[in-house]
């Protein structure tokens, strides 16, 4: 299997005046295509920092990162934006939908940045909204939706440009357990369809569904376990 994501000796330092915080401290990681990876660990262990790096929102201080075979560790901002847009999808804990846009318009944001024609974009966003079970709610604004529904819009939006990796930072963190399970079911569905998933979580239930779980500690991968 080819590695969609490959990190080699990735460190991320934050300089805070005199101190230097090692948010990531020499992480090596390979994620093959189609894998469902859960990232766990105590608060401050560097999970979000890792995810930001994998999501091309940030660059490693040292070390290298290949995304789908391409070295992206030294790309400039415009090129990184392009990577995020075409090959990555983000799902956040607090949904992060744009409040004054409707469901469809939210899903169309990445399509717009990809230069997809409005008509094509509308077809695709409608299809995604239906797939996420939001067929009736396409003209609603985020404020009119439940948390679970909002998170489904966010997942639809993350899938808009058919990314090679879907990244999620505590996607169930703001949801009650029943709704959280619903979202996990959606993620399972994506996994079954062959999508590569990387999910940061505190929730052990997620780990039971993932193919593989890594545990972070002080900016390193402390240990990892695989499901048979």
């Amino acid at each position, binding site marked *: 299997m080819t590695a969609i994501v490959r990190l080699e000796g990735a460190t991320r330092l934050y300089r805070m005046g005199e101190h230097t915080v090692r948010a990531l401290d020499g992480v090596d990681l390979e994620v093959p295509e189609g894998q469902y990876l859960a990232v766990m660990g105590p608060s401050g262990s560097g999970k979000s920092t890792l995810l930001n790096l994998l999501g091309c929102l940030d660059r490693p201080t040292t070390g290298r990162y290949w995304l789908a075979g391409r070295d992206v560790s030294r790309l400039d901002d415009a090129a990184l934006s*392009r990577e995020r*847009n075409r090959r990555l999808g983000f799902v956040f804990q607090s949904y992060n939908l744009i409040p004054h846009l409707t469901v469809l318009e939210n899903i169309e944001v990445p399509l717009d940045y990809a230069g997809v024609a409005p008509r094509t974009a509308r077809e695709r966003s409608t299809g995604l909204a239906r797939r996420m079970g939001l067929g009736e709610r396409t003209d609603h604004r985020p404020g009119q939706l439940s948390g679970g529904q909002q998170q489904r819009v966010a997942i639809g939006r993350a899938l808009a440009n058919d990314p090679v990796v879907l990244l999620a930072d505590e996607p169930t963190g703001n949801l009650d357990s029943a709704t959280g399970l619903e979202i996990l079911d959606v993620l399972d569905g994506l996994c079954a369809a062959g999508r590569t998933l990387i999910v940061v979580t505190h929730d052990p239930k997620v780990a039971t569904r993932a193919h593989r779980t890594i545990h972070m500690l002080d900016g390193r991968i402390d240990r990892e376990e695989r499901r048979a």
Partner: protein
Amino acid sequence: MRIRRLVRMAWKSLWLHRLRSLLTVLGIVFGVMSVISMLAIGEGVKEEAQAQIRQLGASNLILASVKPPEPEGGNEGNARVLAYGLLRRDLEAIRLAIPEVRHVVPRRDVPVEAWVGHRKVQATCMGTEPEYLAVAGLRLAGGRFLTRTDGAERAAVCVLGAEVARRLFDHRDPVGELIKAGTHTYRVVGTLAARGEGTGGTAGVGGESDMAVFVPLPTLQERTGDLVRVVTSGSMSSESVELHRITVQAVSADEPVVQRVAQALRALIRLRHDRKEDVRLTVPQELLRQARESKRIFTILLACIAAISLLVGGIGIMNIMLATVVERTREIGVRRALGAARRHIVAQFLAETVLLSVGGGALGVGLGLLLPQVVTWTLGMPTLVLPEFLVLAFGISALVGVVFGLYPAARAADLDPVEALRHE
């Protein structure tokens, strides 16, 4: 297509805060409105001055008799006769001595009551010569103007100004009818087309012709002599004025020609009316120059006001946009995560600022079209809105949007995506 979407999105987020957006652009609105209004007023004033000067005639120079300041301790005897002003000998001297002159036309004014049956109108009986029609730029409405023969024969004929004709005859044709002016009777031989321009300003030949009864100068002189009786605050006094006006038409309206004639006339007046200050020379062309000069000053002043108000408007917009960027930091982070490059963020915020200022500009143009109308209605001031004012004002407001939008947009684009996502 991209632009349309950009504008639509910008509109959406501005519409979200309608009141704030409106208040934000108020500076631009009033700036643009005042620019257009002031330009319109300036243009109206200029246009009016030019019309007035055109009426006076660009190649004309006008000498008028003016009552000199009262001598010390004067005004004792009631029967005093004050003699001043242009003389018939001045007329001859001008005709003989001044070169580059086409016509020299005298005029003598006597206030009269004009009668037809029981209708009465307060008019000015003007004794003049045939050339007056052309020199003053008057047009006949019917009949004919005065002729040489009229003068030579001391004929009792007259030509009526439009207003006099209307008030005495309504819509009847006055030509051939008799009127009484003071104690004398005249036969109407012609009527003039209306001039209608108020009182004609400084040296106006304008509207005064509407209230005039033109008669041959020799006829008037024979009938009234040189005395004019005037009533000043109850006491009656007499003035002796031979001629009230001499209109000199230069051979061309070229500035050097007119200037030379003006100089020659001034020299002649100085010589013949030494220190009496009873003759005034008006050169319409010089008025035109003055009008242009004051317009220029007005324009500079206006440009400063416009610049300041648009600057203030622009700063207002920038201020709000900076606050908006902070308020929407999270949204910016999300958009960056979804693949927006810096330029997309710049475009988004710039679109909002430009839309704001262009919207404000449009509103300002609308009010700028309205306000001059209101000024004209209420103050009776002439105004004129030229299309280029609108284009100018609109263009400037769009420019203000770009200039003052760039900084907030750059601030938004320079936010670190990770930081922006963590904001709040």
